């Protein structure tokens, strides 16, 4: 029997998801034994034209990590969607926009201006900005076009499965890979849209810290206190995203005294992770009058960056000031 073909790609991502795949360690050999790796830019020397030359649906599974924020990301996402039978949004950026998605508070013009003109450590007196096309004596140079809005993979192409996490836990990756192998053999694939390699409940469900009554009179940043290693971090005033985050990682961050950052996304049935976390936080503030409650609640540092650290691009929130040209250009 021919081996199923596997492709891996990185779009707007940090490379952590690729490292997470390598975290499989010697099991990576099992992956290589079970699959025919046909495209994996970080590790193997295949070119885009090799993928373009494939027949539609020739790749069995594509693990796609990274958000979509430039024309190259989008082009390859569409290309791989055509070539792959099963498209997996792999990692937080691909599934929810991830850290790059936080750029959606701003837009291309502002980002370009800050990075290439107003950055204090920069010497760019002529105000040169990167161009999609530059003519030099040797010919024409091209760069992908940066988009105004960072999108998730499923806002760009149809996605079959989601594997959340920043990055997905190595153990979970193995579970997903072996489940997909088994499913391909039996022909019984999980239902489209399923979240693989994660639980249905919340991070708190996996967290072994002692949880009592949550009543908070002040919010703290992790460096401000030495947290009790046994007690719930949220009860100690540290904003821990556990209650609004999907289980699956084994509560790794809380187990080392760091609050959950929410990378596994919302648990099953929740539309907007940040909105749920906001509700959670507001419900545990303890003060006698509405005014005092409001005062304490307003001390949560950077609610947007905290509650939507990984999920801004997939959230209900939209940037309010938007360049008019974009809506036409990107549809």
């Amino acid at each position, binding site marked *: 029997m021919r081996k199923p073909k596997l492709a891996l790609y990185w779009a707007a991502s940090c490379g952590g998801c690729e490292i997470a795949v390598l975290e499989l360690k010697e099991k990576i050999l099992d992956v290589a034994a079970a699959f025919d790796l046909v495209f994996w830019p970080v590790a193997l020397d295949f070119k885009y034209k090799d993928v373009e030359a494939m027949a539609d649906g020739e790749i069995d599974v594509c693990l796609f990590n990274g958000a979509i924020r430039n024309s190259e990301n989008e082009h390859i996402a569409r290309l791989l969607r055509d070539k792959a039978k099963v498209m997996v*949004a792999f990692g937080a950026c691909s599934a*929810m926009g991830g850290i790059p998605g936080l750029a959606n*508070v701003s837009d291309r013009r502002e980002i370009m201006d800050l990075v290439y003109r107003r950055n204090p450590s920069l010497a760019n007196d002529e105000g040169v900005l990167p161009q999609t096309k530059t003519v030099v004596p040797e010919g024409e140079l091209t760069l992908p076009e940066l988009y105004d*809005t960072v*999108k*998730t993979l*499923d*806002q*760009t*192409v*149809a*996605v079959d499965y*989601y594997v*959340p996490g920043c990055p997905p836990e190595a153990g979970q990756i193995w579970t997903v890979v072996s489940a997909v192998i088994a499913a391909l053999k039996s022909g019984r694939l999980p239902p*489209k*849209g*399923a*979240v693989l390699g994660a639980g249905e409940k919340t991070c708190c469900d996996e967290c072994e810290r002692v949880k009592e009554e949550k009543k908070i009179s002040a919010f703290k940043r992790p460096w401000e206190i030495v947290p009790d290693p046994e007690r719930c971090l949220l009860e100690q005033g540290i904003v821990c995203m556990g209650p609004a985050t999907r289980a699956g990682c084994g509560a790794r961050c809380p187990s080392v005294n760091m609050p959950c950052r929410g990378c596994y*996304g*919302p648990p*099953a*049935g*929740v*539309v*907007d*992770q*940040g*909105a*749920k976390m*906001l*509700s959670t*936080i*507001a*419900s545990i*503030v303890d003060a006698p*009058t*509405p005014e005092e*409650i*409001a005062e304490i*609640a*307003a001390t*949560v540092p*950077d*609610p*947007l*960056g905290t*509650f939507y650290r990984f*999920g801004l*691009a*997939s*959230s*209900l*929130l*939209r*940037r*309010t000031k*938007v360049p008019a040209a974009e*809506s036409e250009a*990107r*549809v």
Partner: protein
Amino acid sequence: MSDNAFEPRLIGFLCRWCSYNGADLAGTARMKYPPNMVPIKTNCSGRVDPTFVMKAFQEGADGVLIAGCHPGDCHYINGNYRTAARYPLMKVLLQQMGLEPGRVRLEWISAAEGDKFARTVAEFTEQIRALGPLEWGKQFSGNGSGSIGAGGQEPTEALEEVPA
């Protein structure tokens, strides 16, 4: 009402024990106020999940009013205290996305305060009229759903193109 003039579209989440009855009173007392707000009855102002407010903006609201019982009057003892905590946090969050703070409003309106209800709606309508249309939902063709696993692409835009 001319076709071109901007008419604010407002959503009001009204608690059924106080503010909704306040709205009823404004009606039975025949008080006049602008017809721009769509009232939605919720069991408690504390039931108004921030998701509701965001969804309202995404689906075309220009302003959202949350109205509940005065502090101490909550039918569920402390539901409106939850609202009181959620509201400032939500406001900061929305401001971080560039939303004008005046587009959300929290008022305590009792069942006896029909006049306050009418006045609030009138004021809020004018406030939003001054701010202009929001058009949050048209920002980009996202699938409008934050839940991963919901899948599918931009149903909202496709639906809008269907002729009436």
